[in-house]
């Protein structure tokens, strides 16, 4: 069967996209600019701007001189491919094979698809009108080869549909730019008087090769169909999910566990082959009474181990109420990330924090008691005790700064300092006696004070003078006075216990 290709050209792709983001700009001239060699250059202009005579490559000041009510936005670099990819994914409803043609078009392999919309004309009309309805001005052309379709979509002005085998006739009247050539070659062609493709199509190949190189011959052959062209199709991402319909509603825990195992057995090999691991997964159970129950799991590092994920789900299966029975199980991996394959070590002592089994253990614990109750601390560059530690975001985080070991720090720190009553003999001396929770402690030994200033840019309050004290029995405490000594009314607190 003769292959048929359709080329779609978006002459105003980037400006159309910008207009979709800012609807108030529609209908007025708009340019997208980018700095280039110390000048601000127009990189894209919409139809209204082009009608005023603005062209790509002009400086922005020149463009502003042409028309007063000109809107200017920055050109978003490296976004064309993403926009084209999204449009391409949408186009998959018209043909299974869509390829991106950077920087402003798409190529569709439409062989055998057009009859669903009547004929090729109906197909083309439908697709182009839909795209224009979405806000993207598009031009399309259909031909036997990609090259001819590309050329006609951009430069053709007779008919957008080139019937089978008519490529030579369709492109002979088009300028040499329609062959997707380098600027250098087209300039040379124009200089020599070859203003249409037809004027050099019949020139001897050896002469063309000698003067313009191999690429001209190749592009010409591609457009005429004597050489095939390879395209890379867009592959839509398949969501990481698995379905398991049950022939009869199930309600026993064993059946539910079997279902989970089956779902994981089909999901995990795919994850493994792609080098991915589940961070978050949800199991949805659709019940016979049209209700839905779901359980979710999360892992600390991505995992694609069937046994591990199964254990995590098993910790929660008791939360599933089957009621009349479950008809359909749906397992969705909502968050998936790349995992690094770990190399096994033959020597060394105990494995460290990066160990796989440790992450699995913490996942199980998190599944049972909740992930926010597992904490790991890293040093933070603050003297204020409450701020001197910070939570580590993951097991791989390394301390950015050294742990503070210069001053005495208590093994147990109260989250809220406890007010105490003290008796001190001299100002700026440690207390002689203090009582806490109704117990009187006579201080026999003390170290201090260690003054820690409040960081005024972070919090309000007085500085603290810390004392490490020991009572008659040898019990050690970390006390502080908030602010300066002011007679009997000093505010004293117990903040920690030493070992």
């Amino acid at each position, binding site marked *: 069967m003769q292959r048929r290709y359709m080329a779609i050209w978006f002459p105003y792709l980037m400006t159309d996209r910008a207009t979709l983001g800012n609807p108030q700009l529609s209908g007025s001239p708009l340019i997208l600019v980018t700095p280039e060699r110390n000048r601000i250059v127009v990189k894209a202009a919409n139809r209204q701007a082009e009608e005023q005579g603005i062209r790509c490559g002009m400086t922005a000041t020149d463009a502003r001189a042409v028309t007063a009510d000109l809107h200017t936005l920055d050109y978003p670099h490296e976004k064309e491919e993403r926009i084209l990819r999204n449009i391409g994914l949408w186009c998959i409803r018209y043909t299974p094979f869509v390829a991106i043609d950077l920087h402003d078009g798409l190529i569709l392999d439409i062989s055998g698809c057009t009859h669903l919309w009547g004929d090729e004309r109906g197909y083309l009309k439908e697709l182009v009108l839909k795209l224009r309805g979405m806000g993207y001005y598009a031009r399309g052309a259909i031909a036997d080869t990609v090259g001819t379709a590309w050329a006609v979509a951009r430069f053709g002005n007779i008919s957008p549909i080139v019937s089978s085998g008519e490529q030579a006739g369709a492109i002979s009247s088009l300028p040499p730019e329609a062959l997707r050539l380098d600027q250098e070659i087209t300039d040379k062609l124009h200089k020599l008087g070859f203003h249409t493709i037809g004027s050099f199509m019949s020139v001897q190949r050896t002469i063309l090769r000698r003067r313009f190189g191999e690429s001209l011959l190749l592009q010409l052959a591609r457009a005429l169909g004597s050489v095939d062209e390879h395209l890379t199709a867009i592959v839509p991402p398949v969501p990481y999910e698995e379905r398991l319909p049950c022939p009869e509603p199930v309600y026993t825990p064993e059946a539910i566990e079997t279902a989970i195992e089956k779902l994981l057995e089909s999901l995990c090999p795919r994850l493994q082959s792609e080098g991915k691991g589940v961070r978050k997964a949800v199991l949805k159970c659709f019940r016979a009474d049209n209700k839905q129950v779901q359980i979710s799991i999360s892992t600390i590092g991505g995992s694609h181990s069937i046994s591990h994920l199964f254990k995590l789900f098993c910790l929660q299966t008791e939360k599933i109420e089957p009621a009349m029975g479950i008809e359909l199980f749906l397992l969705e991996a909502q968050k998936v990330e790349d995992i690094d394959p770990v190399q096994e070590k033959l020597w060394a002592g105990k494995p460290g924090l990066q160990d796989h089994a440790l992450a699995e253990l913490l996942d199980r614990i998190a599944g049972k008691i909740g992930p926010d109750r597992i904490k790991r601390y890293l040093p933070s560059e603050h003297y204020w005790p409450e701020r001197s530690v910070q939570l580590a975001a993951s097991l791989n985080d390394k301390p950015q700064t050294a742990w503070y070991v210069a001053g005495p720090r208590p093994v147990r720190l109260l989250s809220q300092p406890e007010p105490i009553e003290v008796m001190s003999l001299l100002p700026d001396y440690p207390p002689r006696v203090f009582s806490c929770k109704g117990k009187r402690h006579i201080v026999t030994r003390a170290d201090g004070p260690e003054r820690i200033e409040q960081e005024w840019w972070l919090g309000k309050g007085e500085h603290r003078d810390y004392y490490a004290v020991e009572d008659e*029995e040898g019990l050690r405490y970390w006390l502080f006075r908030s602010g300066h000594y002011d007679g009997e009314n000093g505010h004293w607190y117990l903040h920690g216990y030493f070992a």
Partner: protein
Amino acid sequence: MFFFTPPGQTSSAHCSHYLTGIFKSNTNTNIFSIIFAEILAKMAMHTVQNQKALIDHLQKSILKWEGYKAPSETHERMGLGPIEAAFPNQVFPLGSIHEMICANTEQATACAGLVSGLLSVMMQKGGVCLWISLKDNIFPPALGSFGISPDRLIFIRVMNDPEALWVMEEALKYPGLAAVVTEVRKLDFKQSRRLQLAVEYSHVTGFVLRNMPAKMAPTASAARWIVKHLPSRLEDDMPGLGFPRWQVSLLKVRNGNPGKWMIEWTGDKFKLIEEQKSIHSLEQKAG
């Protein structure tokens, strides 16, 4: 089988057969029959002079049969000095459950200090420690002064005792950990047995800090500790705080000898303090 040996012809071989016969009738005494057989065999070989060596040898054999491995040449010293001699084979039992009784927060802190000192040795070769507690009040920077890198500790806050013990048991089954420390209210025999079974598989050391001394049921742990603060002492009675000093009591040691010691943490290791009477009190006695 049952042997009657005629009088006057008693030989060690016969005697052992005789005893074996007696104990065969009892199901659980197989091990004793082996021990007795060995005793008698040895007694025939050895004279009275090397009885002490014999008893030592037998003790070692008994420990071996009970699952205590003889210390290898390169076994780790925990730096506890003579306290380690209280344990079977004179080795601090890693891979078992240690129970520490703490009546109040101060004692629990002293226990945490002792445990941190021990952890610094256990974590020298890498590994991670899990610290499970009901209250989230351990201050990580302080553990740095006990020679631990606090970022290799993972803290897990639990809501109640059953949850704490569940987490501890799960964690003890994983051999990659250096140790697991759990602070709970109480621990009964069944729970401690479960923990002991978990560590027998993984050889992870578990510390249980329990703060309800009133309900002190027998447990399956290898040792029961009490750590109390003692007033610190500086040289020449200088003012200020000295090194933390504790009275460490081993109330119960499986196959070991309980005892009481005074130790200090001197910033990088434990130091045993010899009991010495001050001159002042001696003078008072003399007077």
